[in-house]
């Protein structure tokens, strides 16, 4: 029985009723599972559309700060849906490229802001609209690096003060 299944980002949904030919919202894991068993067709989320993604990408390039993403899991969803259900998504390749471009732009921004953050020795910085996955790409590294730098700095300080005391 073929069914249409709509992705659903939240993992706790009420499921069903399943009617042939009617779309229903289910968790992504189930959607992908059903798709793999060829029991359904997937309907891509609304933002997974070339025009909308182009707009998002351009906006992202134009702004210095991070722009809000259509979904907090945009990268994960794109990966999953394009890997398993690219036949249900029109212009899948273009979408892949667009999302990748957006992702790259955002990561470049993130690196840049991390750089300026370190350079200017700021105590704190505010980064809005970052998705979890993006945070995780640099999160651990950055915090550890900051720890190290702090250690180095604090080691540097006494020596400096020691020097000054010498004078």
């Amino acid at each position, binding site marked *: 029985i*073929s069914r*249409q299944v709509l992705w659903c980002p939240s993992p706790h949904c009420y499921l069903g009723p399943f009617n*042939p030919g*009617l*779309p229903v919202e289910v968790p992504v894991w189930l959607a992908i599972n059903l798709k793999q068993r060829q029991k359904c*067709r997937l*309907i891509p989320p609304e933002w997974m559309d070339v025009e909308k993604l182009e707009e998002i990408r351009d906006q992202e390039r134009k702004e210095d700060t991070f722009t809000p993403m259509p979904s907090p899991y945009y990268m994960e969803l794109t990966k999953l849906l394009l890997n398993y259900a690219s036949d249900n998504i*029109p212009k899948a390749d273009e979408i892949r490229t667009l999302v990748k471009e957006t992702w790259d732009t955002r990561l470049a921004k993130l690196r840049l802001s991390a750089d300026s953050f370190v350079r200017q020795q700021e105590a704190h910085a505010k980064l809005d609209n970052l998705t979890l996955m993006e945070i995780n790409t640099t999160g651990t590294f950055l915090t550890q690096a900051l720890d190290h730098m702090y250690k180095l700095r604090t080691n540097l300080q006494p020596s400096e003060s020691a020097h000054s005391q010498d004078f």
Partner: protein
Amino acid sequence: MAATQKPMRYGHTEGHTDVCFDDTGSCIVTCGSDGDVRIWENLDDDDPKSINVGEKAYSCALKNGRLITAVSNNTVQMHTFPEGAPDGILTRFTMNANHVIFNSDGTKIAAGSSDFMVKVVEVTDSSKQKTFRGHDAPVLSLTFDPRDVYLASASCDGSVRVWKIADQICTTSWPLLQKCNDVINAKSICRLGWQPGSGKLLAIPVDKVVKLYRRETWDSQFDLSDAFIMQPLNVVAWSPCGQYLAAGSVDGNIVVWNMETQECIERMKHEKNYSICGLAWHPKHRQIAYTDTEGNLGLLENVGDGKKPNDKVASTVTKDYNDLFDGEDDDYLNGDMIEPQSSPKAGANEDDGDDLMPTSGHLRRAIIDDDDNSLDIGMIKANSNLEKEDDDDDQTGGFPALPPSSTQQPFYDGPMPTPKQKPFQSGSTPAHLMHRFMVWNSVGIIRCYNDEQDNAIDIEFHDTSIHHATHLPNSLNHTMADLSTEAILLACESTEELASKLHCIHFSSWDANKEWTVDMPEDEDVEAICLGQGWAACATSALLVRVFTVGGVQKEIFSLPGPVVSMAGHGEQLMIIYHRGTGFDGDQCLGVQLMELGKTKKQILHGDPLSLTKKSYLIWVGFSAEGTPCYVDSEGIVRMLNRGLGNTWIPVCNMREHCKGKSDHYWVVGIHENPQQLRCIPCKGARFPPTLPRPAVAILSFKLPYCQVTTEKGQMEEQYWRSVVFHNHVDYLSKNGYELDENAKNQSVKEQQELLMKLFALSCKLEREFRCMELADLMTQNVVNLAIKYASRSRRLNLAQRLSEMAVEKASELATAPEDEEEEEDFRKHLNAGYSNSATEWSQLPVRNVQQDQEMEDAEETDAYEEVEEAPEVHKQSKKNVLSEEAGSYLNVSSNKKDPVVPSANVLDTMNKYSKKTSLSSSRAVNKQNPPVIKPLIPKPKTKQALAISFFQARTLNSSEKTVEEKEEKAGNESHEVKVTVQESTENRRPKTGFQMWLEENRANILTDNPDLNEAEVIKEGMSRFRMLSSEERMVWTEKAKGGTVNDLTEDKKRKRPTADEDEAKKNQEQKPEDSNLSKKPKPLDQSTNVRLAAFAFKQS
């Protein structure tokens, strides 16, 4: 005949277009901004030959098998016609050419370009070019003098110039037009035209008039104008005979004048008011092809009044018509001109009278004009003679002599007939698409691919357990399809060799031969098809409906009153929609037939008019999954058959309300009543979806167009009636022998009653007691009881009283109903109208009766005991004299009823509260003293259960249960008696029940056994003892007690009244001493009657 305007069709992508006919008039040639030249055999040609000439084509001209086009690469190209092979470039400009034309013999072309230049080139030798310089802005349009001496051009610089071709000099120039800097900014493209034949007149569209200039003198001869023209004219075109002039305006009006009379003979309006940018006359017939700036192509036929000169012309004009033109057209002109006026047809039409022939408006006006100008006929003849001689002088006098006001005369502007919509299959997309849906319904999807590589049909089932997906070659070119869970039905129209065919793939057949085909008789085309359960049907162009079994046996055949629009099947039902007549002003005039092809064949809707939104047409017709007919019009209104209201149509959804954009639509694929779902496909900027990417189904909710749905009241009213409408199918199906889930039905009733109760509460809050009554009228009996309770709790005692009266009335109606039932049943059989609405109610009646009999019993029991409970209370209260006036009146009501009756229960409820307030302790005591009050209530849920299980069995409850109830009832009566005795009223005269009689005899015994008992306890004790008696003994007492009264009751019904009256009288007597107010009350009559009847019915069963 008035010109017939065929619907416009898509010709090119949006943008400027041009149109011309080929020499013989056998095809229309158009060019458009998509760079294609298309050759249409006729307007309905779905596969025109396309020649790509460039990126954009601005203008085209065709003569002697040569097609020249002005294209966007600044060249004027030549192609062979009709092959379309490139034949060289004639000339080049530095900008694109805007207009190209042939001269009359086809030896030269002229082209005007945006680089301000005009060139004349010999077709055979493109090196022989003449250039005309002088315009100061892009050249818009050109026209050749038919005698090849002059060339006229219009330009954006605002001038119209006439050039002498041989000398390449400007002969004259008129500053007529508005200046602008480019073609796209020009108000009008000013396609001017030289009169064919003599070339005596040059017609130039200037703003809203056509100015006519005279050859050689170049003075303005006269203007043609019409009140119909509201916007500047874009194009003028002369008929090949030179007698008629057509003009198209930028707001889509086309006007045709007769040049002799200067009368406007035709006025047509573009269906979408797009700007007309191409206009061409058919070389022989009275047809005008026109194109608009949105790329559409249209055709006007039978332009002009009177007899068509076709035959004559066709015989005289051979293929090289244009060569003959100069020589012969004058005779032709003469004949042509006079004929219309003397046409017998025209006269006959006039006789038809105004009212009968509104459609002949154009014609009639023309005739009237003729009459007005009848004096001019001679003059016109003279004119044409002059024309023949090519002499100018006299003519100048001739034209102004015509009444100048003639063009301002009123013309017919009444309702115009609407073109009839073509037959269609529900759930299909247009047949001209290469990839289309042939059907999308609740069973599956049939797609059709018709491109270069493949002509095939794909069938896909939503539920693959019905059948697997199938792929069929479409060699017969099927255009119609339907799909059911049993079969696939396909049909094609006839071709030249093959007859129209109906092809059925009966996949659920158990034998090996799953397909059958039926050929239609000659000249009969299948126009619509549908499948039902076990049958297939098709409607044909011969206005016949043919029914087949699904296995291919020919069955019924019947005639339709009009051309079919669409049909649909479901189960045994067949619905056919057809044209009842001609609609006007954009409306369609459709009729609907609904029939049942089951064992009893009958027609339910006998060609009733179909309600459509104004100016809309039908786009979907079918049945809900539950079998209720529905249809959708182009304004997005979904209507459903309301079987509960005499088979009327009720709008259940406005899909346009759900659309985001103006051009968005929903494409319906299915309707479900339970759950209420409208399944459709959202289409952005289109009426129908493409096959790829696969569209997703959306679900819309229904909403009846009730007023004030933003308020709570409106909302609930809408919900209530929607629930009612969407459960009509339950009755229909159950009548047709379908097994139905009783739970679902009960649930719907519950839902409706809940809504009513909410509405009731709302009205109560708003102090709308009359409205409360009206609502209560819609409620079922037990919900009315609830309502009474609610009313009394919220201290609306007046309302509660009225409600209780109503409840009694209802009960009485129901009690009398069963007696009529038998008659009704016979009547029903007679009528054989098992599916009509009234029948629905009939079938419901017995059910309800039984149910309510039961309820009544319940209520009686309850009442009885509540009264028992009440009795001492009342007693005490009356002793204490603490009752308020209101309470007093209720006391009357309760005491009024000697027999326990339904309504007082809740009134007494209130009383309970009152008494609680006044003497809490006493009421508590009463409750303690009267355990039987609680006990007899227990049977109530029991009977309810029985009810839920089976309405019909409720009547045949086993006798033991009955007797218990009976006895209880008697006990109630008895206790009532007791109460009355306590009150020292004259109640004793009243006939007694068995228990009462027994109790009287045995009271002494009880008292001796238990001397410390009070009155209530005595009754209680008495009841338990009475219960211990054997049923025979009890029967004896009952019989004793019944005595005369029961006999009365069992007598003929006619005696009901008198008995009741007697009773009433008695009662009044009784009550008078108590309260004189009582005698005013008319109700007790009904009450007692009802109760007696109820008791009677009860005892009988």
